């Protein structure tokens, strides 16, 4: 983990309202593993005390890239950052995705720009696999050419049917999984990044099928380094109990079956 003043080398629209930020930041880029993140201090964001976490989209040699969309005042301020500007980055933070072993076929599942860390993951894998990516509309589908260039199969699902299968990403995934089961093909190993609903859907499928799965959580963070205990997630432990884990430190990647999704949720008696 390092704190660096990273210089913006490239900053441009990435299509569909997303933007690409490329930093010159060798110390963090060289150490970055797929699934890790950087904690970025948005310059000029007056009145703000917290950094903003971003998945690492690319890390090659001296450069490190992130993707973001303007959703709040932080990302709005980021959109104005000029090339050449220095930005404070902490990173690489958290634990990345473990690489697949044995015969398992990597099945990457992304919702929206949850695809960003999966791009880095696919580029570092020794084998190819398949990507399932979903979004509300075709405009939410990013980066599929990155996977195609690496020789990966890509399956798209959009809720409005404007690209690929009409429906949710699981509507594309489930028939594919069923077919593989019929053929007794090697087992999948899931790598998922996206909203909680998607993570949970993949979690259920991995556990039910007895397959390995890795889920990357997105939580509001404070310090990003494990000190403040703001971003905790309840997880099950071996003895049958449960405990808090810090998404920034023990995560953001958790194993399927580990997450206690409904911990503390009160039964609705209304």
């Amino acid at each position, binding site marked *: *983990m390092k704190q660096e003043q990273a210089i913006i080398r490239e900053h441009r629209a990435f299509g569909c309202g997303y933007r690409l930020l490329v930093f010159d930041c060798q110390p963090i880029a060289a150490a970055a593993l797929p699934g890790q993140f950087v904690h970025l201090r948005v310059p000029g964001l007056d009145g703000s*005390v*917290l950094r903003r976490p971003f998945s690492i989209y690319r890390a090659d040699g001296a450069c490190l890239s992130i993707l973001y969309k303007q959703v709040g005042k932080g990302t709005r301020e980021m959109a104005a950052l000029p090339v050449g500007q220095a930005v404070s980055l902490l990173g690489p933070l958290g634990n990345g995705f473990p690489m697949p072993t044995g015969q398992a076929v990597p099945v990457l599942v992304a919702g929206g720009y949850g695809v960003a860390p999966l791009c880095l993951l696919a580029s570092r894998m020794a084998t190819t696999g398949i990507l399932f990516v979903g979004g509300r509309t075709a405009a939410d589908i990013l980066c599929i050419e990155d996977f195609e260039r690496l020789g990966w199969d890509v399956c798209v699902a959009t809720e409005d049917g404007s690209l690929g299968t009409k429906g949710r990403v699981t509507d594309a995934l489930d028939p594919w999984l069923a077919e593989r089961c019929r053929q007794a093909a090697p087992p999948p190993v899931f790598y998922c990044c996206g909203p909680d609903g998607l993570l949970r859907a993949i979690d259920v499928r991995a556990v039910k099928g007895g397959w390995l799965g890795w889920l990357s959580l997105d939580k509001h963070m404070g310090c990003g*380094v494990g*000190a403040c205990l*703001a971003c905790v997630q309840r997880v099950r432990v071996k003895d049958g109990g449960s405990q808090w884990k810090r998404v920034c430190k023990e995560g953001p990647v958790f194993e399927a079956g580990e997450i206690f999704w409904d911990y503390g949720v009160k039964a609705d008696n209304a």
Partner: protein
Amino acid sequence: MSGGASLSVTGPGMAVEIAGIRMRNPVMTASGTFGYGPEYADLVDLNALGALVVKGIRMEPWEGNQPPRMVEVQGGLVNAIGLQGPGVDGFVRDYLPFLRQFSTPVIVNIWGRTLEEYGEVAAAFDGVDGIAGIELNISCPNVKEGGIAFGTDLQMASQVISRVRQSTRLPLITKLSPNVSSVGRFARTAQDAGSDAISLINTLPALVIDVETRRPVLSNVFGGLSGPGIHAFAVRQVWDAAQAVTIPIIGMGGVTDAQGAIELMLAGASAVAVGTASFTDPSTVISVIEGIQAYLVRHGMRDVRELTGAMVRK
């Protein structure tokens, strides 16, 4: 002298002694904002700190609150972590061996839910190698007295401080609650009950509401406000406390740079702590130390202790 930010032979004196704890400079970490030390060790030279104050510890491990536990607001953040922690044994087992590698004094922040528990925690740390002192968080509800915070009732505050005082020989720093009408009276009570120093301010009571859902953002509903937005209030509270006591004061609240730290000292603090700003920039604590040194040089001052209470009244 060890550590990157300690005084040189020719530079102004930076060392201070608070409650019998000798520090190489007057800049500490604020409890709850720096973990237990290892979290920031890759980013900050722990040997450069004046003292390291760890996150609050009670007798047993404590789960804290449900998330969401923190929300950013204009000028700061509101947290309701709920004092999640490893308990005394967990801290001594999992963190203290790491902290003993450093020459920086380690101050444990302690809390309890009853008078008795406060005494137990204090006693448990008495004589433990590697602990330089205790910071006593009295802003917790007394579960035996209807949940009234110890630190908002003069009698309960006096009782809990006395109990801890009787339970330990360690230097005792009482961290006052800002949620009172007269912080001076509580400062005086802390001194009379045997505190060696006081620290202030703790976070301010706060509530953040999501106007779309009309629900509170934090699962605990209420939280504590920290960050630059509370700084001027902290300076006033330190001033008020300084008028009431003779024991040293550790000032904190919204310090982001040396100027904020120096303000607290001019108002009467002998040392300061950096809190929320460590989240913004982990190196803040180091830049505050360096900035105070530079200020002393610029103002021809020979020793940082000259700053304490040196505000010039109009």
